[in-house]
């Protein structure tokens, strides 16, 4: 039992610690979905940082252009944050399953961090993570009203064709 738990609450916590029994139906539904999805794509190969920055710049330019008809609707979305004191910055959100390691930002100059993420049309909640622990919302985007437990997050909406 956690040592800072008041003694009068120990029985209460014990009542909450029972674990649900195995759920064969849920297991099978998850595996059926996994089979349908196929083998997950592996992470990208490591590439030099300079190449990443160049690629991000190209994608940022592309975002200003109209997306061609009939192509993959995913489009590059740039995210920028001013965080001069941060040593590292990443972005977590619905699009990368809140994985801090998945989408690091690149430093551009002394104060600015940025990354470009390819997003299909949809609504995404996200936050920036500074130095692995400090979550901050994007000051340049609307706040997400449905994800506020004290961890500020923002929302970005990517419109589809004809939207």
């Amino acid at each position, binding site marked *: 039992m956690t040592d800072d738990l008041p003694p009068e*609450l120990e029985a*209460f916590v014990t*009542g909450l610690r029972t*674990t649900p029994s195995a759920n064969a139906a849920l*297991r099978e539904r*998850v595996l059926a979905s996994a089979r349908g999805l196929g083998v*997950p794509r*592996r992470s990208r190969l490591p590439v030099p940082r300079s190449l990443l920055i160049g690629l991000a710049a190209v994608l940022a330019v592309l975002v200003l252009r109209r997306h061609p008809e009939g192509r993959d609707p995913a489009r590059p979305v740039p995210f920028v944050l001013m965080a001069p004191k941060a040593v590292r910055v990443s972005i977590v959100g619905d699009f990368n399953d809140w994985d801090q390691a998945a989408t690091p930002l690149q430093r551009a100059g002394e104060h600015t961090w940025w990354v470009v993420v390819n997003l299909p049309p949809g609504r995404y909640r996200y936050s920036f993570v500074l130095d692995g622990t400090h979550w901050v919302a994007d000051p340049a985007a609307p706040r997400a009203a449905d994800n506020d437990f004290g961890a500020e997050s923002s929302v970005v909406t990517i419109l589809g064709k004809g939207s």
Partner: protein
Amino acid sequence: MTPTDGEVIARVLAGDVDAYGIIVDRYHGRFARFATRMLGSREDAEEALQDALIRAYRALGAYQHRERFAAWFYRILVNRCRSVLAQRQRRRAVEEPTADEDTPTSDAGFVGREQATWLLSRLPADQREVFLLRYVEDLSYADIAAITGVGESALKMRVKRGLEQLRQLLRQGNDD
């Protein structure tokens, strides 16, 4: 020998999709417990857990710290639970316990799971979340901060408020 999470994930990425079942079996109990306690509904918890497991599967290839699967998965599950609670709020379809709702009691006091679940439902969702991660899931404040995105000092304040509220509820229940 029991394979580690990293070894299981490597098997999945090598094409053995069904090996993901090992991960599901390994963690179902604790994750289902957290979701059930957080949402107060077995059906909602099952749906949130299933959705989180599928999201995690899809992201397995991009996830690099494979021996830390549980910590990573908690983040996904916590966010799924938050989404469910937010949807409930928006739809106003949930029937939250009301102030005059009968307090479940027993001769033995507040020791049963039913009473514990009722007490937990009285906590605000943000306090309930950190209370569960700290005292039921036995996670450190550093781990909870990484999972929830809330600073450690704010987490400790929530725990303090939650504990105080639970004490009050316990006293009320035992006085009845």
